[in-house]
C-alpha cells in the first residue's frame, strides 16, 4: 500500500520531466536549419511534392497546435510516419524492440554475474589479490571503448575460435541467445566497472555496521555473514546505481548493435540518421528517454520495497 502511494507520488514528480522530454523531442524536428521539408526530400525536392509532406508533418499549423498534435498522437502510440521505409514508425520499432530489450536484459544479467562477486570479494578482502586486480580491471574497462571491445571479442571468439556467430540475430530462442552472447558481454564489461566500484564501497560501509558485528559475535561464519547480511544490503545500493546508470547501458546498445549488426532499435536509429529519416530519430529519442525514466522509477520503487528502513523513514 505504502509502495503504491509512493509510486504515484513519484510519477507526479516525474511529470515535468516527461513534459520536458516531449518538448525536446518535438523541437528536434523543428530545429533543423532551413526548411525541414527540403532537408527530408533532399534532391527529390519539388514544390508539388513538398506540399503534401508539409501537410502530413503538420508544419502548416501554428507551432502550439503542432505540439498538441504530437503529444496527443504520442500518448496513443502514434509516433509519426517514416519516409524512408514508408510505414508507421511504431510498426518499425515494434519489429525491432524485442532484440534490443533482450540485449539489455541479457547484458544486465551478465553485469550482475560479473560485478556482484567482484564487488563482494574486493570489499570483503580489502587490498587482497582480487581487490588489486579489480582495480586494474576497472581502470582498463573504463578506457576501452565498447565498439573496440566488441571487435576484439568478435576477432577472438568468432573469427579465430569460431564459438559464436559473427553478426546478426538468428531465428529462435537458442540462436538469439548465441547471437546476443558476445554483444551482451561487450556491454557488461564497461557497465560492471561502475557497479563494482559502488558495491565495493557499500560492502566496506556495511562491514562497519553494528548488525554485522552482532552477527559475527553470535558466531556466524564469515561467508554466511557475507551472504545473509552484507550482500543483502549491498544489493540494494547496486540496484540504485544500476537505475541511475541505465542510460549509459541503453546508449551502449546503440553502438554495440551496430558492431554486431543486430537488427534492433539502436541500428534503426543510426540507419535513420544516414537516411535523413527525421520522424524515426524523433520517435526513438522520445522512446529512449521515456524508457530510462520509467526504469529509474521502477528501481526507486524496488529500492524502497527492498529496504524497509526507507519506507519507515518516510512515514
Amino acid at each position: 500500500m505504502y509502495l503504491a502511494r509512493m509510486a504515484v507520488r513519484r510519477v507526479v514528480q516525474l511529470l515535468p520531466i516527461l513534459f520536458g522530454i516531449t518538448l525536446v523531442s518535438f523541437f528536434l524536428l523543428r530545429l533543423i536549419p532551413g526548411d525541414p521539408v527540403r532537408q527530408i526530400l533532399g534532391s527529390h525536392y519539388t514544390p508539388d511534392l513538398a506540399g503534401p509532406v508539409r501537410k502530413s508533418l503538420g508544419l502548416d499549423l501554428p507551432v502550439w497546435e503542432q505540439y498538441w498534435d504530437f503529444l496527443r498522437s504520442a500518448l496513443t502510440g502514434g509516433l509519426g510516419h517514416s519516409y524512408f521505409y514508408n510505414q508507421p514508425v511504431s510498426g518499425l520499432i515494434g519489429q525491432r524492440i524485442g532484440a534490443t530489450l533482450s540485449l539489455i536484459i541479457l547484458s544486465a544479467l551478465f553485469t550482475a554475474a560479473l560485478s556482484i562477486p567482484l564487488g563482494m570479494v574486493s570489499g570483503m578482502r580489502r587490498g587482497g589479490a582480487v581487490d588489486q586486480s579489480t582495480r586494474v580491471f576497472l581502470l582498463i574497462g573504463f578506457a576501452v571503448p565498447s565498439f573496440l571491445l566488441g571487435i576484439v571479442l568478435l576477432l577472438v571468439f568468432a573469427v579465430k575460435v569460431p564459438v559464436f556467430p559473427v553478426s546478426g540475430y538468428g531465428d529462435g530462442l537458442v540462436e538469439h541467445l548465441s547471437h546476443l552472447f558476445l554483444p551482451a558481454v561487450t556491454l557488461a564489461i564497461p557497465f560492471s566497472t561502475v557497479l563494482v566500484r559502488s558495491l565495493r564501497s557499500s560492502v566496506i560501509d556495511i562491514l562497519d555496521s553494528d548488525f554485522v558485528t552482532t552477527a559475527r559475535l553470535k558466531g556466524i561464519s564469515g561467508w554466511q555473514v557475507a551472504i545473509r547480511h552484507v550482500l543483502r544490503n549491498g544489493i540494494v545500493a547496486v540496484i540504485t546505481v544500476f537505475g541511475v546508470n541505465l542510460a549509459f547501458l541503453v546508449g551502449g546498445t546503440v553502438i554495440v548493435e551496430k558492431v554486431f549488426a543486430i537488427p534492433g532499435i539502436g541500428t534503426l536509429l543510426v540507419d535513420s540518421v544516414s537516411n535523413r529519416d527525421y520522424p524515426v530519430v524523433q520517435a526513438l529519442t522520445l522512446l529512449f528517454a521515456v524508457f530510462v525514466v520509467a526504469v529509474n522509477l521502477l528501481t526507486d520503487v524496488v529500492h524502497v520495497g527492498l529496504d524497509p528502513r526507507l519506507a519507515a523513514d518516510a512515514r
Partner: protein
Amino acid sequence: MTAFTEVRTPRRGFVVPIPKPRWMRGRATLIVGVLLVLAMVVACVGAPLWTSSSPTAIDPAHRLLPVFSPGHLLGTDDFGRDVLSRILYGGRLDLAIAFGATAVTLVVGTAFGLCAGHIRGKTGAIMMRIVDLFFAFPFVVLVIAIITILGSSLLNLFIALWAVSWVNYARISHGQALSSNNYGYVVASKALGFSHLRIMLRHQLPSVLPGVIIFAMVDAVGNVLLAAALGFLGLGIPPPNPEWGSMISDGQNFIFSDWSLAIMPGIALVVLGLGLSLIGDGLSDLLRPQS
C-alpha cells in the same frame, strides 16, 4: 520527501578508494598518465616530423600492406593509405575533442551548477530540473539526434558534445556549492555583505573545483570515446579525414584478412584513454589527501 532525496543521492555516492599496489602509489599514476598523454600529443601534433606519407594520399598499387612493410610501418588500408600517418593525423582530432570539448563544458557546467547552488530557492530548483531533463536521455542518443539535425561536421560534433555534457559538471558543482553555503567562511562572507559574484568565485569555487577537475579527466575520456563511437557509426567528421573511430569501423570490414587495421587505431585510443584515466586517478589522490 526525505525518502526520495535519499533514494536519489547515490548518484554521486561516496566511493571508498581502492588501496593500490605498491607500484601505483604516490604520484606514480599521475606521472605515468601525464607521460602517456604527452607522448600522444607530441606524436600527433608533430606528425609531419615522424612520417612523410600523407594520411589521405591514395595509392592503388600498395593496398592492404601488412604491418612492418618497408615504408609503411603499420601497413596500408584498402585505399593504400599509410595507417601510421592516418593514426597520427587522426589523433589530432581526438586530442582536440579531449581538450576542446571538455574545457568548454567544464567552465559552462561549473558556472551553471555554482549559480544554482548559490541562488537556491525556486530559481535554483528550476535550473537543476533542466539538468535532470538532460539526464533522462542517453547521452549517445541525444548527441546523435543533435548531429542528425545539424549534419555531420567537426564543428557540429563539438556543438553536440558541448550541448550535452555540461550537465555532469552542473550536477557535481551544484551539490558541492549547496553544502558550501553552510561553511563558516561562506556564511561570514555573506554576513559581511560581499557581492554574490565575489562569494561564488572567491569562497565557494575553491571547494567546488577539486571534484570538478577530477571528473574532467573522466569526462575527457568519455568525450574521446563518444567522438570515436560517432566516427565508428559514420556520424563523425566526413571522410576522407582520418579519425580513429571511423578507421576502426573501416578496419572491421577486413577483420577476417587483416585484423591490425581495426586494432591499431584501437590501441591508440586505449592509450589515450588510459593516460587520461591515470591522470584523473592521480589527481584524485592529490586533491583528496584524507583518503
